[in-house]
């Protein structure tokens, strides 16, 4: 029987990876479709809600926008936050992480002569940002919100794994955030996925 969920994206981590981490953490089966940008995307594009991927197909409905998809899957897997307030806190932390993700992605997208400037911008932005996140991080060690794994932890792990490539010591004096980086891969589903997921440029 085909899985109920079909996630379609390019063969990249990027905007689909938090959703893949959610499925993995919960052990929920899904079809991880990776399309070729050159040969397959042009035909698919007009059939997507907003001409973009990732999309998630479920029960005859197609959802687009990576955070909308991730939030839906987080709710399906019980990883969205346990109360309405916790869900709002998860949402706001994920929203904020968009800024960090953007600064890190800018380095990759920049032309060679601009890369150093983008790296400096990340180095200037990250410390204050992460200091605030350390303060916002909840009292339960290893979890940004509540006392168990949420989408916020997975999103944080995904972004920080990339940020740490440029700023390796940045979590040294931020113990709660550093602990999240341990807690996430300690989840068996996540660990299995990290070990077997395709190698991709980003």
């Amino acid at each position: 029987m085909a899985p109920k969920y079909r996630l379609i994206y390019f063969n990249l981590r990027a905007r689909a990876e938090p959703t893949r981490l959610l499925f993995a953490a919960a052990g929920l089966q899904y079809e991880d479709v990776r399309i070729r940008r050159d040969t397959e995307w042009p035909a698919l594009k007009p059939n997507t809600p907003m001409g973009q991927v990732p999309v998630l197909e479920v029960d005859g409905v197609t959802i687009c926008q990576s955070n909308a998809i991730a939030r839906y899957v987080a709710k399906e897997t019980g990883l969205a936050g346990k109360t309405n307030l916790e869900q709002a806190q998860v949402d706001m932390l994920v929203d904020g992480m968009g800024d960090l993700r953007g600064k890190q992605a800018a380095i990759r997208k920049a032309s060679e002569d601009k890369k150093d400037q983008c790296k400096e911008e990340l180095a200037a932005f990250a410390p204050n940002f992460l200091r605030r996140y350390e303060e916002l991080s909840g009292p339960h060690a290893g979890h940004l919100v509540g006392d168990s794994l949420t989408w916020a932890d997975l999103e944080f792990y995904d972004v920080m794994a990339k940020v740490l490539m440029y700023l390796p010591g940045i979590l040294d004096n931020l113990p709660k955030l550093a602990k999240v980086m341990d807690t996430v891969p300690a989840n068996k589903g996540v660990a299995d996925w990290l070990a077997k997921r395709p190698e991709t440029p980003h």
Partner: protein
Amino acid sequence: MPSYKLTYFNGRGTAEIVRLVFAAAGTEYEDVRLEHDQWPELKPSTPMGQLPILEMDGTMLCQSNSIARYVAKMAGLAGKTPLDQARVDMVMDGMVDMGNKFAYEIYYEKDEDKKAEKKKDYVEKYVPQFFSSLNKLASDGGYFAGDELTLADIAFYNMVTMVNPYLEQPLSLDGFPNLEKVVDNVTSNPGIAKWLKERPETPY
């Protein structure tokens, strides 16, 4: 019932979507508008050094769309089923993209020639294509999710009216009948209609 306190500057900006949801929900809230010189003192105590923030029951939330979603959820305006909620979220995110594209490619562009070119492209190519996609997502009753007003409909109305003042003419909904209905549904909602009449006139 908790007491809600929304804090932003004296403008619509990124807070207006929250104010519109409160209006549609008929929920009382304190609509705090800071002078710019009051902001530095408050800033360190906010979660991410930004506005708007929502305070309730000793908790502070930030990020305008997260706040809007929370308030909408409390009022049953965030979508009735998980899939409807995902539809609402995707439309909200799409509207943010539309706003960001305007802001980064046009509003912040200093080169006047580039600015004019990008504006033309936005109005003549990008928006019609995007509205065409959105028109398919909206029902012919004028709802993006289910058959009742949700945050998605409000987000559409809010972003379009946010961008319009910066253009030579308001964005056209000709050929997008479902989107015209969405706007009707939003502006004829009693709470929103009242708010639109009463809200302060502000430059942004």
